[in-house]
């Protein structure tokens, strides 16, 4: 295995509006395309960004939706974040909700978190394209 190499961080913020989510999908796919990531993985990444963004947009009061993608030769670490009101989010049963299950199938290390004034969903997408599937 070649040594892990850091390929930098791409970040972008958009208005918290479903009509702009495609921009985040596109950015994620563009960054992924720089890695030897398979088409399947790139498509999964798009679906995951869509799912995470949609979940965060449902929280009330958000004005901004941002994405941060940390790329390395190992894969991508994606954080999607909004400044919405989310006192009771995520609930204790979050792992049994549909968005979680969908994201867990599309990526690894899924985390739903709330910090001071922001709600975020994080996941990883590893480079798997060169493992030959039999």
């Amino acid at each position, binding site marked *: 295995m070649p040594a892990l190499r850091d390929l930098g961080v791409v970040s972008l913020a958009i208005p918290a509006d479903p009509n702009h989510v*495609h921009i985040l*999908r*596109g950015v994620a*796919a*563009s960054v*992924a*395309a720089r890695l*030897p*990531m*398979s*088409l*399947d*993985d*790139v*498509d*999964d990444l*798009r*679906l995951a960004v*869509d*799912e995470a963004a*949609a979940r965060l947009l*449902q*929280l009330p009061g958000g004005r901004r939706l941002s994405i941060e993608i940390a790329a390395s030769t190992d894969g991508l670490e994606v954080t999607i974040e909004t400044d919405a009101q989310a006192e009771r*989010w*995520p*609930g204790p*049963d*979050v792992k*049994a*909700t*549909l*968005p979680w*299950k*969908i994201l867990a*199938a599309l990526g690894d290390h899924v985390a739903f978190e709330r910090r001071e004034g922001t709600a975020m969903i994080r996941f990883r997408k590893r480079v798997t*394209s*060169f*493992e*030959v*599937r*039999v």
Partner: protein
Amino acid sequence: MNVRRLPLDEVEERELFGRLPDDEARAELVRRFLPLAEYLARRFNGRGESADDLVQVASLGLLNAIDRFDTGRDVQFSTYAAVTILGELKRHFRDKGWSVRVPRRLQELGLRINSTLPTLYQELRRSPTIDEIAERVGVSGEDVLEAMDASQAYSTTSLDTAASEDGAAPVDLLGEDDPSIAVLEEWAAVAPVVRRLPQRERTVLYLRFFRGLTQSEIAEEIGVSQMHVSRILAQTLRAIRDAVGPGDVVLPDLEDDLTD
């Protein structure tokens, strides 16, 4: 009422229609009239949709025709089916607004990529990377991404259209058992729309989220293009989201061993 002599095929057809909603009778009707659907689908070639996708749409028209045909009327099924299938194909183009919104260059590139993918997949024995696709097709990686995006640019279907517009492929009807229904019940409990999804959509959900197959593997399994699988997943997840609405609903704890 005058009794006219029916040719043998027509007699058999009536018998088959009489047995509906029997699955076998339905599958037999699909088998008999699939060539008609394929023939009509070919008339729409060159409008920016892959031949596979067109046949899928035409097959849906055929299924609708089978379900709606009234044997009491003095119309031959083939006539009725042709009208229904053509209607479905036309509606497909109109609803998707495909030829309007997506520039011709991207439509064509999308088709070229789509037709390259199976070969690449066979050669590499894995899903190709964007760069590999770009190299094979002879364009830049950016172009590939743009075309992939465009192929997803179908209007987002609403819940009801997701359930009624995009029907099951004939191949699904012929399948013997469908484990997806039991397994997806977990999801259906919080998103009843899952129960109303067409068979093919349910199968794709099941294979991706419960069996963990990749999009390319699903494409091979159900006999459509990878891009089509990608589109089905995006639209179905969207339909489910719209149906569930805001807020997290906790899934019921069903038997986990169903999923393995």
